[in-house]
């Protein structure tokens, strides 16, 4: 507690590290004067796993598996950014069919991520019915991803030089059926978030970031596009099959939380359109190509549009079997500064919504301690620990 300029008292409210808004760890300290936030600081790293260090001791192929585990929501886009960068370094041309499948998975992942966000953000606003319906519908896209790759979360669709999974005719038909259902549902959600009076009180005019602020803060992704910053890497620097399947960017200008809802929901329609275009026009041919084990020395920058915005990879090879350095700058880190600066002047109760508004992903953010060696935690060892702790076997 400290004195403020009005001679009153000022409190510091710590939020987190457990679940500040989403079910992920981050720590914030908000100085408050009454209900109004006067200062904000952030402390991250609760999900820091030393991945950037760990990549330096693994070979090019192993790293693909490691890097796609940076994030459990946008695993594909991490692997894709890495593969595109490494392939550029190795000067390997990936077959068009593989590139199109990468884009298909990337868009399905965006659909899953945006629907997941819609549910979480609705929950933060106290609109749990919307949360439950949107997550029920999200299962449709999860089934598509599982059908295509066999996995719901870490799809592991990429290989250096291609993809592992091909699209069958049955699966294509199933995807199109699912997309039609999701399109109808998304229209309904768009109507709800722009017309529900109670919900609008939590979103309209809240957390407004002007175009100028957005430019200055360097925000990325849907957060930027809701403030009129037309920045979508798929559009401004098309990569992989986005050169063949162009994207129309979704830009809103209000800059408030409502605009962030609208941008993400409208982006869903664009993703549905893209998925259909890819499924209908999938180029024929191979899905993999040969890839060297060693990669010549060089540096490459790989930028892709993750569901949360621009994902940046800097990869450096010194000519060996392992990368010399892989730097990952995730969209959440780029957007974090905006939460800190927007929080000031808002009601404390708006903070969870403000944080949810950027769709933060702390695992992405934190990355970097891997556990290996002979003292791994086995199932049996965990079970023994449980028995010792609770004094009885749980199963």
């Amino acid at each position, binding site marked *: 507690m400290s004195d403020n300029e009005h001679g009153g008292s000022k409190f510091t409210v710590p939020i987190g590290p457990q679940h500040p808004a989403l079910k992920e760890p981050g720590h914030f300290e908000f100085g408050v004067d009454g209900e109004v936030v006067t200062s904000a600081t952030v402390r991250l*790293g609760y999900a820091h796993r030393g991945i950037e260090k760990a990549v330096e001791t693994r070979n090019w192929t192993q790293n693909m598996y490691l890097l796609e585990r940076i994030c459990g929501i946008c695993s594909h886009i991490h692997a894709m950014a890495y593969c595109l960068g490494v392939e550029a370094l190795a000067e390997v041309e990936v077959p068009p069919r593989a590139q199109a499948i990468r884009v298909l998975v990337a868009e399905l992942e965006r659909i899953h991520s945006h629907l997941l966000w819609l549910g979480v953000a609705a929950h933060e606003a106290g609109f749990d019915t919307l949360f439950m319906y949107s997550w029920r519908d999200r299962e449709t896209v999860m089934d598509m991803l599982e059908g295509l790759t066999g996995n719901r979360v870490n799809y592991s669709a990429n290989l250096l030089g291609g993809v592992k999974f091909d699209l069958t005719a049955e699966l294509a038909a199933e995807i199109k059926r699912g997309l039609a259902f999701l399109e109808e549902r998304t229209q309904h959600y768009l109507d709800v978030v722009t017309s529900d009076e109670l919900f609008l009180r939590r979103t309209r005019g809240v957390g407004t970031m002007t175009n100028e602020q957005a430019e200055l803060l360097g925000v990325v992704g849907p957060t930027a596009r809701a403030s009129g910053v037309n920045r979508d890497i798929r559009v401004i620097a098309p990569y992989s099959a986005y050169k063949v399947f162009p994207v129309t960017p979704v830009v809103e200008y209000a800059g408030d939380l409502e605009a962030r809802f609208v941008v993400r929901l409208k982006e869903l329609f664009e993703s549905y359109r893209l998925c259909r275009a890819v499924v209908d026009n999938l180029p024929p041919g191979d899905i993999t190509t040969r890839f060297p084990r060693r990669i010549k020395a060089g540096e490459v920058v790989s930028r892709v549009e993750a569901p949360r915005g621009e994902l940046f990879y800097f990869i450096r090879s010194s000519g060996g079997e392992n990368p010399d350095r892989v730097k990952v700058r995730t969209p959440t880190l780029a957007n974090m500064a905006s939460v800190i600066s927007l929080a000031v002047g808002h009601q404390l109760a708006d903070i969870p919504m403000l944080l949810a508004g950027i769709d933060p992903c702390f695992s992405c953010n934190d990355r970097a301690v891997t556990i290996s060696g002979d003292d791994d935690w086995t199932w049996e060892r965990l079970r023994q620990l449980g028995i*010792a702790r609770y004094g009885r076997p749980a199963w």
Partner: protein
Amino acid sequence: MNSDLEWALEIVGEWALEHNAPAADRLDVRIKPEHTAAAARALIDARWGYLTAITGLDGSAEDGQLEVLYHYCRGASILTLRASLPRDHAAVPSVCGAVPMATVYERELAEMFGVMVVGTPDSSRLFLPDDWPDGVYPLRKDAALERAAPAPEEDQ
């Protein structure tokens, strides 16, 4: 080199020691570390683009120096300003005056590479744990990393 990158070179030209274009949409410009903040100011004032990331590098230079890379983007073009820093006195001025959000990037750079960022508004740890030993910078190639002892089991 495209016209955007030619323009970028014009803006930062006065500080450029050397430059090369590793790819069609990339330009690398080597500058002195003390000029990074001035260059950031100039790029932002000219509304050339935005700072997308700050990368620390170790092992890239033969003389064992560290490198800091500032990546600025405009559309598909990427301008990288590179500054070499001596290992024992690695310091750069903060670019937060021009790019306020760089604070999180600078905190990461400082704790991971032991680069002092002079004038950065918040120099507290961002990612590393509170009990992380001082003077150990994990992303330096010679960092003495040992596995932490397992936490003692409590409240049995």
